[in-house]
């Protein structure tokens, strides 16, 4: 795993470790690949946001760069017609299910969705798809953090952060379109043992988990 190798991303030669995930090898060399659910030190990435597609020479179809380990001599390109199309559709789907109120959102200008839109020239408004509003109540019960499930992109970073740095009270529940981040038995954050560390808010790539001032 610790063997040094050379790969090429978008024509740029990059030195990295064998097996290092391509997403992070690229990000470390200043090449941006859209992503929401991946965390640098996660060895079993959930690969659920489906935005970090890249093309690798010799591969039949685009693959998620958060799951693909680098190997000597790999030639990778972060853009292609197929990749752009997948990212555009995936992003539009996420946007269609994300409550857009950027101006009043605490994460305005530090939001991953805004960054992806900017990097890839995508709109923060679904063009082909209808909005899928879930109109779930905002959980404002805790002292230090607030949770707006209508902005959640279900990346799971808060769950992980809470488990590692906080009280470990967050998890997923329900299935399919109803999948949500929740606490045990769906209790409000304020009554579920939240210790107010706000690790979830720092981890959240969008404005769903936010730290209260």
């Amino acid at each position: 795993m610790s063997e040094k190798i050379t790969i090429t991303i978008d024509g740029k030669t990059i030195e990295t470790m064998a097996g290092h995930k391509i997403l992070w090898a690229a990000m470390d060399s200043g090449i941006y690949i859209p992503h929401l659910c991946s965390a640098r030190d996660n060895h079993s990435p959930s690969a659920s946001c489906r935005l970090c597609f890249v093309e690798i020479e010799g591969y039949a179809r685009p693959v998620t760069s958060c799951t693909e380990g680098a190997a000597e001599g790999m030639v990778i390109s972060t853009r292609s017609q197929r990749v752009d199309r997948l990212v555009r559709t995936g992003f539009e789907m996420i946007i269609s299910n994300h409550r857009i109120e950027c101006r009043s959102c605490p994460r305005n200008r530090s939001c991953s969705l805004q960054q992806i839109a900017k990097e890839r020239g995508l709109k923060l408004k679904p063009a082909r798809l209808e909005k899928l509003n879930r109109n779930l109540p905002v959980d404002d019960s805790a002292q230090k953090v607030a949770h707006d499930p209508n902005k959640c992109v279900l990346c799971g970073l808060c769950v992980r952060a809470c488990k590692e740095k906080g009280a470990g009270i967050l998890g997923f529940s329900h299935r399919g379109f109803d999948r949500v981040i929740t606490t045990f038995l769906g209790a409000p954050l304020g009554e579920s043992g939240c210790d107010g560390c706000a690790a979830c808010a720092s981890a959240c790539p969008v404005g769903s988990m936010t730290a209260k001032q």
Partner: protein
Amino acid sequence: MSENKNASVTLNTIRSRVAGDWESLKQKTLITVGSATCGRAAGAVEVLESFRKEISRLQLDASVIEVGCMGHCYAEPMAVIYHPGFPGICYGYLDQGVASRLVQDFLVEGDPCVEFALAATGPNDYIPTFEDFPRGTVEQKHVMKHCGFIDPENIDHYLAVGGYQGLAAALSMSPDQVIAEVKSSGLRGRGGAGFPTGNKWELCGKAPEKTRYVICNADEGDPGAFMDRTLLESNPHLVVEGLAIAAYAAGASKAYFYIRAEYPLAVKRVAKALEQAAQCGILGQSVLGTDFSLEIEIFQGSGAFVCGEETALIASMEGRPGLPRHRPPFPSESGLNGKPTVIDNVKTLSHVPFITQKGSQWFRSMGTPGSPGTAIFALAGKLVNTGLTEVPIGTTLSRIIYDVGSGIAGNQTFKAVQIGGPSGGCLPKEVLDTPIDYDTLTRAGAMMGSGGMVVLDEHDCMVEIARFFLDFTQKESCGKCTFCRLGTKHMLGILERITKGQGKPDDIDLLLELAEDIKAGSLCGLGKTAPNPVVSTIKYFRHEYEAHINEKRCPSLMCKDLIAYYILPHKCERSCDACVGSCPVEAIYSDEDRIKVINQEKCVKCDSCMVACPPQYKAVVKVSPPDEVVRKEKVEQ
């Protein structure tokens, strides 16, 4: 592991102990009642009771046993009567009355009541055998051969028909030889994807980790597919034998049945089979007296469709939510508890004992070069004879539908067949004469999948069928990845608006675009195949989509929002009030000539009047689009 030449000897010792019982059973009168779930749903338990009661009342020397399903589910409840001096005769469509009558007339008076007979089990002069029907010329039963004939809860029956010889044969080879034999047989996974089974075993067998697992995937969940259930309920020992061979080949000493809890009878019968096999020394510390040991356990799944996906299945067995994960690593490398794991479908494992016993060449003599062997299909939908069938791969759809299924019910016309469940596709009549295997089906836009076949006739709207299957996958999506969670939701929304007459001109293109991206972008097989029903119906029935969108018309008169009920004045009998009485919302009234008229404002389109109108009048019709009623009224005036 050393080669175990003595496995056959041990098996023969076990068999010689039971052979006598089986022979004596056949020498006197024997009634076998099909009591798998399909039979029970049709009333087999009552029929069974009736036979038993009548026999004990008349104090006859006859035994009545429960067996599984032989695939003729349409004729359930069924029973076979073996009476000395007669061939075994199979009776169908039984009820308690017919059952008592058979005992009286046949067993007491010697009249075999041929009017209730479906077929005989052996050649004779007066009743045709199963093989004499067109169905018999298409079917080639190996896996299903003993289903519906032997007692699934009695290992002696299985042993008497040659059971566990495949395991004995496998144990006389080295695991590598077994893998080589299965590889050269070309057996492909019958769960849907069609991955070569031998390769899967080899990958697991080569893993450096010695603790390995083998899992039988019995999480059958496709709407319209029920062959795994039937196999487990009708001949569980065959699957146990296949699983044991897989474990031996892959070097596992622990195996599991993953059965959904909605199949309680299958769970019960497999549990009994495992218990009996262990008692006989076929499972446990020393399998058939060799140094191979195997323990098999049952794990009951909670019925999530996605848990049929192997990584989700493993997650649920480990006590985590049943969500798929990214592959690789594949389970054969890192599966249950991180150990190398082989996961095979019930049907795949059921083929294995025949391969080790009869050899790969024998297996290759059936089917097509790319997909050898037989396949089991579940026939459902608008067929005369629904049920299960086992045919060589490469049989044409028309032979399955017309020869096995006896054609379309109610003298209707064939329109399409949905193959492979919600992950499969709808194929039109143009494909009927294509020999079907894994590859031709995929090329045609469907897939082998679990082998479910839902036959559709002219009354089925293809947009509605696509919506139905997508509704299923959308509800069963675990919600982990973006494309499946949101993509199927969006596609379903578009299909819903089309069936409601609110479709937009661009909707077909949008559906196809989304379908392509969902297939390419989803994390697991559920999402990757979910758009198939939509894509295949657009491919073959685009005109129906266009009629819905452009003309607000449902050509099959199925979509409630696009039809209206209308009573043809010249056909209405006037003095008959059947429709009026049937209407739950009092929408039907009589005009001055006593002709019945439907108040369209009130009508809830429940279909009751159409059913109630006596067949000699057939005055109630459906029209589409709904404003067709106005035009018809004008014409009549």
